[in-house]
């Protein structure tokens, strides 16, 4: 168990190091996020109602994630290094977990810049507890990373990867997106009919379900 977890962290560290050196995906993600925020800010005159702002913020994160999550496994197949992970004496779920951690860190780096820019340009602020706000972004980003890593793994054998990835990623991540928009709206303007704690529990349950199901079926993606 310990060695599988340390292998997962080694995989994540290796991917982060590679990404920081080539900077391709992170640059594309950051640029897309920035242009999206600027476009919305200009279109809406800098005054965005919080209920729309929360949706815009998560839609930008959701779409930005595609640039980072899609190549998670595709780059391994292109370099042929997936075979190295496949023959290593580690359980398949630790490879998956390593990729989820990498996806989370990658998206997290972008969000560190994106969220303050959104708050300034879209005049968006949170009235709720800062820990609940942080927890929402951490869980939400982890959820997207979990779905994105699995979608990337399932896309590997396909010849038309760029078509297959959104087909897998969109429907699976949309349920989390709707929950996150509702939760963030509540964090900005106060809870609606559904208590925020309950929404937070549902999004945690979604994350646990995604990671568990993906980790369980991931070995089939690694072996033919």
């Amino acid at each position, binding site marked *: 168990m310990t060695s599988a977890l340390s292998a997962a962290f080694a995989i994540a560290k290796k991917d982060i190091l*590679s990404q920081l*050196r080539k900077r391709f995906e992170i640059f594309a993600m950051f640029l897309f996020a920035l242009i999206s925020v600027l476009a919305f800010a200009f279109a809406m005159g800098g005054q965005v109602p919080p209920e729309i702002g929360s949706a815009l913020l998560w839609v930008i994160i959701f779409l930005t994630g595609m640039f980072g999550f899609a190549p998670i496994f595709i780059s391994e197949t292109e*370099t*042929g290094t997936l075979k190295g992970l496949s*023959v290593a004496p580690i359980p398949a779920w630790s490879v998956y977990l390593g990729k989820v951690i990498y996806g989370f860190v990658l998206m997290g780096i972008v969000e560190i810049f994106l969220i303050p820019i959104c708050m300034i340009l879209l005049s968006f602020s949170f009235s709720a507890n800062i820990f609940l706000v942080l927890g929402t972004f951490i869980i939400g980003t982890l959820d997207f990373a979990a779905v994105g890593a699995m979608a990337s793994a399932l896309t590997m054998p396909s010849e038309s990867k760029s078509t297959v990835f959104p087909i897998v990623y969109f429907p699976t991540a949309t349920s989390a997106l709707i929950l996150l928009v509702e939760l963030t709206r509540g964090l900005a303007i106060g809870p609606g009919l559904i208590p925020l704690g309950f929404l937070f529990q549902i999004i945690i349950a979604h994350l646990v379900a995604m990671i568990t199901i993906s980790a369980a079926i991931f070995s089939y993606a690694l*072996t033919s």
Partner: protein
Amino acid sequence: MQDPFLKLMRKIFPRRELITGFGFPKLQCTTVQQIEVTHLSEIIIEAKELTRRYGYRVALKKISFAFTAGGVHGLFGSNGAGKTTLMRIISTLLRPQSGSITVFGFDPEEDFIEIKKRIGLIGDKPLLYPELTGRENLEFYCKLYGIDKETMDNGIETLSRRFGVFKWLDEPTKILSTGLRKRFDIIRCVIHSPELFLLDEPFAGLDKEATDIFKDYINEHRSTKTVVLTTHNLRLGKDFCDDYLTLRKAEIVAQGPISEFDEEM
């Protein structure tokens, strides 16, 4: 430390499959005793009626063979004969559609981690990350194999000096030549001291110096480790292997000691 029960079993049943065959519980955990038991087994890879298809194309058709522990086993055949498919099945990367295979007495479907611990694989492409340096690549694989830092540092230094890549250790592998990348890939394959080397065209892309170094390395270990080698270079295969197995159109057409090898087959 030897288990007295296992000691007794070793005397009564010199082959592991006989031990399990008599209904004794199958050993699952990784213990020193278990590794000793697998060493006792003469047969290290045993395939029965192995079949693998890719769509309608048959890559392996009901092949049966056994490789004994130690020595170099050559796997010969023309392109598309099924050599790489067989290597992928042995290394647990591919599942056969029918038939069975055991590696070190383990079933690849169930005990794949036990098999993976004991194998080192070299394929057509070096399994290296282009953005990382040679050292970072090797350290990464060492971590996956659970090698401690001291052993890892010693192994990287010793092997990189031996294979002539020491001065390129801290260069990103993307700037290295194909031959240098291949040398790093060989180090990656051997650094965890596997019991079984699966070498798919290992000398392709290597210059004479690197080929000789690697051949010397294999020769040093051929009595204690098992090597399965595929090559199109039949002269090299004939000089280097102890026995052979020739595949043609997904079937075994010849096998036996290398002294009986006929290039015309």
